[in-house]
């Protein structure tokens, strides 16, 4: 089962390496990982997507909590949460596809950042599943040149539980 896990990590030398290393050395896959600063300059917030059965995820959470610079770990999967991913995609579009593509973009609430047929760039913020659907949809109107995704970001709707 897919799990989305939020981690608050102290900004220390090697902290991210240790967390990533834990996944590698204990045989877990990271499907996506996003890391960025928070309002607290000493902390980073990570959002991880991984898969595993219940006991594997329980074990993973326990192992993450053993890392000294981990401040908090929360498995957001079960609770209500908001999940978003940023997509930026560049396409080559034939002139007769332009209009349909612009319409599709509007329907999905995406934004067009550049609209030359050779360099058609769209930005979309949606759930991972919707991003996947959108990529499939746009591919009908143009040739995908480049895809960049942030990986999932997530927030519990009721505030982060103590981990």
């Amino acid at each position, binding site marked *: 089962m897919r799990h989305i896990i939020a981690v608050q990590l*102290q900004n220390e*030398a090697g902290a991210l*390496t*240790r967390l990533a*290393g834990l996944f590698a050395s204990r045989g877990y896959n990271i499907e996506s990982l996003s890391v960025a600063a928070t309002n607290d300059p000493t902390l980073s917030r990570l959002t991880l997507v991984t898969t595993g059965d219940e006991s594997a995820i329980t074990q993973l959470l*326990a*192992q993450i*909590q053993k890392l000294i*610079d981990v401040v908090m770990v929360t498995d957001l999967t079960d609770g209500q949460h908001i999940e978003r991913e940023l997509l930026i995609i560049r396409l080559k579009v034939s002139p007769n596809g332009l209009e349909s593509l612009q319409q599709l973009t509007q329907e999905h609430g995406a934004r067009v950042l550049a609209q030359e047929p050779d360099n058609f760039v769209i930005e979309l913020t949606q759930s991972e599943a919707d991003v996947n659907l959108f990529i499939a949809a746009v591919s009908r109107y143009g040739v995908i040149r480049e895809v960049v995704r942030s990986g999932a970001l997530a927030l519990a709707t009721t505030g982060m539980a103590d981990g």
Partner: protein
Amino acid sequence: MNHPESLESAKHPRAGQVLSGAEIIVQVLADEGVEVIFGYSGGAILPTYDAIFVHNRDSAQPSMPLVVPANEQGAGFMAAGYARASGKVGVCVVTSGPGATNTVTPVRDCLADSVPIVVICGQVPTAAIGTDAFQEAPVTAIMGSVAKHVFLVTDPTLLEATVRTAFEIARTGRPGPVVIDVPKDVQNWKGPYQGQGALPIPGYRRRLALVDKSTLSDASAAEFYSLLSTAQRPLIYAGGGAINGEASVELTHFAQHLRIPVVTTLMGIGAFDTTEPLSMRMLGMHGAAFANYAVDDCDFLIVLGARFDDRVAGVPARFAPNARVIAHFEVDVSEINKVKKVGFHHIGPLRQTLSALLHYAKTSNFSVDWSAWHAHCAQLRSVHAFNYDRDSELIQPYYVIEEINKHAKGEAIIATGVGQHQMWAAQYFDFKGPRQWLTSGSMGTMGFGLPAAIGAQFAHPSRVVIDIDGDASIRMNLGELETVTTYDLPVKVVVLNNCGDGMVKQWQKLFFKGRLSASDKSLHKKDFVRAALADGYGFAKRLDKKADVPAVIKEFMEFKGPAFLEVMIDTDAGVYPMVGPGQSYEEMITGDHIVSRKTDHDVTPPDTAEMF
């Protein structure tokens, strides 16, 4: 606490003094009560070595002798031996690059066996990091995956707090190794000594506090005893956590009050006096046959600071198959249900947990008659006792250990290498208390024994410390033979020489049709006795006649000062019992001299693909 006077008196005498980074490191070590430093100097750590020299010459505080090994791996294992034997944090100080990488093995070894050490590595100057400078190695990246924690000090104002915090992390919770990487310019920086302060590690401290204050509630105790009251054959399975948690006394009181037999893991040896009638000794791959049968027969298993390691529960589903309840008491939440699902568990410090359990048993007058089970265990112990070919003309290793044990009387500190001799020592020595048995359990590092014995001797200068080693294991850190005489330590070194890697040969004979690939050393030229003599041993003998064993061992054990004894043992001697990899206790091979419960001795060879 808040009195101005008490604040004043708590102020560090050197607070406010301007010190170099190196002096700050040494002052924190002194404040932490460090008694001895194991390490090897080199370019990037020179300032700190100089500061240790000056401290030992000038300071009114106790000096911290520097013990220099032949190789930094030796220093790491000396620190580990010191820590294992004393329960205090061992300290190892090495230079950058190769100095640091040579300590990777002891650091991983300490993590795997939960041993608290602090390793301070010199690093190339901050500005040179990442330039492939001379003797540079990416220590945080390398150590990050093998240490409990790693610090790279880039801000010298945080150096003091970092060193102090490293000790805190090493000794708290599930203990482990902490590495501090200190660039040379940080050692040469000058700034005021604070005399207090630690780094913020809010997540770690909060989780630790949760575990530390997690006392066993009366309701949980009641639930435990209500489960236990229906048991007819309860058994305690105690691991290294009972020793790391300083819970040996409480374990003993608990087991004796309730009259529950005790098996221990390799790491738990000494947590419960092996000479006590309730002791069923060690379980596992090379555990006592009677211990393993007791595990098979028990209907209630109480797990104390142990983790169902693959050498204990090779096949988790068939481990303790008759136990209706497994109750797991642990300090590390990640060990619960990691290998084996348990019906009852409690996370908390083992010592307090056992005290609470005992208190509840006493106040609730808990009492069950388990005399039939006691009789069964006594019978298992006598029928399936350890045994060997006592009439053999060759020197049997078990005999040698029995003879040494007559002098050691369960009170010596025994360190070992890894392999057959390690298992024989675990099986045939008595251990009356904790921290007497120093062995590389999880990592299984050959070469561990000699440096660990040296470290232990520094922790306990007046105790008898014996390194039981193998000819192959001791070769791994043979340079440390000289370290013993350099510091004139009364360490007793025993090499049970079976001309090769005995355990490897045993597996090759059992599972690889006897093809002794790269494990036979009978053509090797090493003369261990002459090597020991060359290193200045006042006692260095080779024992190759069975009749001489008692007299030579007596002489060896009575010798004051560094002593070396090589014993030419039966090269075919095996370690029995043996639970083959991937097999259950029921299928245990007991050899020719230990009585098995299995009537047919057909051994299904394990699947080689699953073997390790």
